[in-house]
């Protein structure tokens, strides 16, 4: 089948082809069907307008924020670095802490510490 496609593709691209091979391909039903498919695809592509519709272009332009030329790419690159750094730190933090305590990294900072005293406010249960 690859041989069929090669011959037909070369033919449609205007290249020289081996006439005997082409005759052999066109002698088969698969070869003729393949040629028909190639021609149908090419016609569809030619009929399609390559330019975006003017209304789409207008909507896209209205949604864009004006920015100074020359700063767009560096700003995007810097933002990407920051996002990656944040996500990386978050990812590492989540996976490090998950082994210790699911749902939170570490105990909250305490504002008071109270100590139980045995036989005062700490007792054996009978």
């Amino acid at each position, binding site marked *: 089948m690859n041989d069929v496609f090669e011959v037909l593709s070369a033919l449609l691209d205007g290249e020289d082809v081996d006439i005997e091979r082409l005759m052999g391909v066109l002698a088969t039903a698969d070869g003729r069907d393949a040629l028909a498919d190639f021609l149908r695809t090419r016609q569809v592509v030619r009929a399609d307008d390559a330019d975006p519709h003017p209304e789409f272009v207008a909507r896209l332009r209205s949604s864009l924020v004006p920015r100074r030329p020359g700063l767009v790419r560096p700003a995007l690159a810097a933002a990407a670095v920051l996002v990656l750094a944040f996500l990386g730190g978050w990812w590492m933090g989540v996976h490090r802490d998950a082994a210790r*305590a699911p749902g939170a990294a570490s105990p909250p900072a305490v*504002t008071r*510490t109270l100590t139980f005293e045995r036989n005062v406010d*700490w007792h054996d249960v009978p």
Partner: protein
Amino acid sequence: MGSKAVVAGLVAAAATGLSIGAAQVPPASASRTVVTVRLRVSGTSTVAPSGWWAESVEHLRAGESGRVSVNAGKIGAQSLCGGIGAGASSSDAAHAWTADIVLISASIDRIGVRVSWRRFDGGAAVAGDTRELVLAEQTRYPLDFLSVSEPDRGGCGAASASVEISADVAEPASLAETILDYEIWRVHEDGRGGRWSERTLASARQGEQAEFWFTPVTWPLPSGCDVAVKVSGEIRGRLRDDGTIEMAVSPSRRLEHTVPAIRFPDRRAGSETGKKVVDVGPGQSVRFVLPSATGSSGLPCGDPQAPALRVDWAALLANHQTSIIVRPSVRRQ
């Protein structure tokens, strides 16, 4: 609301040297607290569902006194059938209980009362005493128990009656529907850099008790036994008008010595508990440090015929420290 001033009662308590922990003098902040005191008679029956029969209620502030009464059985009858109620005169009932209550102090989960109770059978006082108690909220304290022999149980089959007293802080309507959430941590440190932290969440309505549990911190011993520190507990919290939260925190610790290799392991354990009351501001966290372990337990490890291996908890867990950290918050919609 009990209206009698009980200065005399407080003076008498001081004069007799009776004390109720550190709560003998009502704190100023507690003077507005209203406590609901209940005297309840419950019974068992051979022919009817068991449960509580009658309840008498009094609302008191610290320093006030009141009387609660319940009764069971008709006068002249041996059984407890009929005549069950609250507040009736003792001479109208076969058995009647009356308790004169003085509310000495009122803080969360620690309500100090002096109870003078009497039981009247056919109008005659037959039992009773005066005692001072510190009552935990939502806990009933037994005062008296009455058993009825089989021939005297009557048509209702009442076999016994018990009389209990309880005291709970009455919640103001504006705060009664408050939901309190608790973020709770158990942190166990071995003193050599080892640290086992675990977080859990609990919640409860205003003034009600929330329970929490943590997974055991376990160490295998070369003998084949395991030892484990298990921590659980209870928290009762109450939002105040000023936005602070009053908490009674009661952690419990169980030091357990087990043989894990057998299906239903024998175990030796000692349980300890304590309670602390603390006021917490919004967003604040409090650490509660548990005392060092003490005591020992013995268990044959692996071979039931072998002599028991005795674990000295103080030596085994020397330098270890277990803490509970609690951060309460008020749930908002």
